[in-house]
């Protein structure tokens, strides 16, 4: 009778320990996802945003300007909260011919009183259009430094490739400006004016 109870008890203990092990493993698995996820994306290119290297690479247009085709390009500007800047697109939307070069401006202003360096990260939606959007000259190629309260225009020269697939007739280029400062992340300063919405018309 007592044997039975003891046996039950030790059985239960064994199963409980085993299951607790599974729980601990799965908790670890969550954290292991951090490096694994990046690795997975790099290897397979699953996450199109990690194919950033293809941005800026020109798909050479095979034949001059395609005057018969119109493509709508929209511009979106976002600032990461760690960067005390205002940043917006001067032109929000524009109709372009593939194969022709255009220039648009972005407006950036440092809201803080100290010199800050930032870097803009571009991305294109839909992602399938990414390789067909070539930036000939872009403020995102370099880091940008603004002294206290400095305001500046940032130019972008771009061209949409004539090879752009038929079904794509509009695309959005989006920039996120981030603070560049190795090893230190600083939350938005409390004494700064409140963050404005990055883009007033959407």
């Amino acid at each position, binding site marked *: 009778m007592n044997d039975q109870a003891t046996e*039950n008890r030790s059985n239960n203990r064994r199963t409980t320990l085993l299951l607790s092990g599974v729980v601990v493993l799965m908790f670890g698995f969550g954290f292991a996802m951090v490096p694994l996820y990046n690795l997975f994306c790099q290897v397979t290119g699953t996450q199109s945003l990690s194919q950033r290297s293809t941005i800026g690479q020109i798909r050479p247009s095979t034949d001059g300007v395609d005057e018969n085709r119109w493509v709508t390009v929209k511009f979106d500007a976002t600032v990461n909260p760690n960067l005390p800047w205002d940043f917006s697109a001067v032109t929000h939307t524009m109709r372009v011919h593939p194969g022709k070069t255009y220039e648009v401006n972005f407006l950036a202003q440092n809201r803080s009183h100290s010199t800050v360096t930032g870097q803009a990260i571009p991305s294109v939606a839909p992602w399938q259009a990414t390789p067909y959007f070539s930036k000939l000259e872009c403020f995102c190629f370099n880091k940008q430094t603004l002294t206290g309260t400095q305001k500046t225009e940032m130019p972008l020269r771009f061209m949409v490739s004539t090879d752009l697939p038929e079904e794509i007739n509009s695309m959005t280029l989006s920039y996120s400006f981030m603070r560049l400062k190795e090893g230190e992340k600083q939350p938005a300063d409390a004494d700064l004016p409140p963050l404005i919405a990055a883009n007033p018309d959407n």
Partner: protein
Amino acid sequence: MSTTTLTHDEAHHHEAPKGWRRWLFSTNHKDIGTLYLLFALVMLFLGGASAMLIRMELFQPGIQFLDPDLYNNLVTNHALIMIFGAVMPAAAGLANWMIPMMIGAPDMALPRLNNLSFWILPAAATMLILSFIIPFFPGGGTQINTGWTIYPPLSIQVGMSMDFLIFAIHLLGISSVLASINIIVTLLNMRAPGMTLMTMPMFCWTWLVTAFLLILVVPVLAGGVTMLLFDRHFGTSFFDAAGGGDPVLFQHLFWFFGHPEVYILLLPSIGVLSHVIPAFSRKPLFGYKSMVGAMLAVATIGMVVWAHHQYTIGMSLGAVTYFMIGTILISIPVGLMVFNFIATMWRGSMTFETPMLFAVGIVLMFTFGGLSGVMLAVVPADMQYHDSMFVVAHFHYVLMPGAVFGLFAGVFYWLPKWTGHMYNEKLGKIFFWTNVIGFNITFFPQHFLGLAGMPRRIVDYNMMFTEFNVVSSIGAMIFGLSHLILLYIVIKTIRGGKKAESRAWEGAKGLEWELDSPPAFHTWTVAPQIK
């Protein structure tokens, strides 16, 4: 034989304890089951109240009386209270009450742990409610306007109530992991001699699978929200692109939990149906083995299709195709379960008492939700439907019938066993009809709203969506108020009523019906012999 078990020893020195000690220190599976169920009932009304506020605001276009952040806070709170406060605890309550009685065990395998897993819940609920009301106090920070998915970067910017929420999620996670471990150990080690895994009642099987899913995915969610906490306070950048992190990683962690979670909500109710439908069709369950197989298939495939919630984040074509095919594949075993239920009813001598009414309703309405699920699983279609009211309609059609109505069916089916009294059948039927009609009026029009382009989680809407929203809000009033009937029935049945026999339903099969109604404080202290 196994009279001297762990539980029996312990139970002796507070045999039939009195007053609050009976509940606070309880290690008795029946008392803890009751606690779980009452807790879930309270949460059902809390979550329901927030839903009514949401529908009142959406009754007309424009902003009536909720500001946008408060509206979104309500949406967040509603989802979390319903999922973690109402459905999961109610299912755990059924498990606590029924599993030991069904498998001929004297109690759960780990009764003290059982006490702990319940009593963490009120603490967690308090944190959850605090996370909702703290922004109303001076210095309380901003409202949780993220929705239950708490995606960064928005969730990193929310004020301190997000910390309360993260802590609440940790507590809720610990509670359900402990409960799951307990249930698995009980099912694996405590079955009466002669009862094998392949002959144990289907409700036990569904809970075995549910519990395994829980211990596999809840820790991942806990990890994800822990990283969120670190990003908020300790300068890490798991999800902050500026520091080399990726906000989309959070989505993957969340949905790695979130998709299996929907089966966690669904399966216990499937278990209930596997008892209710045979009992009122007076036929054994059709295809026991295929049910078990289908359930294992659902659970396994369900672990690897999470990104169908993230089609729009810009995955590669290969990835979305994989997730699409995986998701659509799941509808095969899910469909098989539904067909098994229909085959069980086929040519049975059916009667339609309240539990059976709910069961038949579930088979119809849940299937409908499954169909809209398949629509959402198709990538190009989902690009349009995503984050629209169509998704809201879909998941309420699967969750209400699939989870909540299943629990209602279980409560009505076993209430006579628990209380020893029959509930009032007429009131039960009135509850069923008002509830089900209210539900359909509320959520059916939301399909049209979504298809026409009304986004979810937004306080205001375009004039052209007014009519369907009015209908939906009126339905919500009927639906919400109908639960008062449930409350009345439950209270009335606890306090008295026609005496229930030990086999309260003449078609009911299983060990639990061989015990008195209500059962003694300790049952199966001598394990039954299974023929």
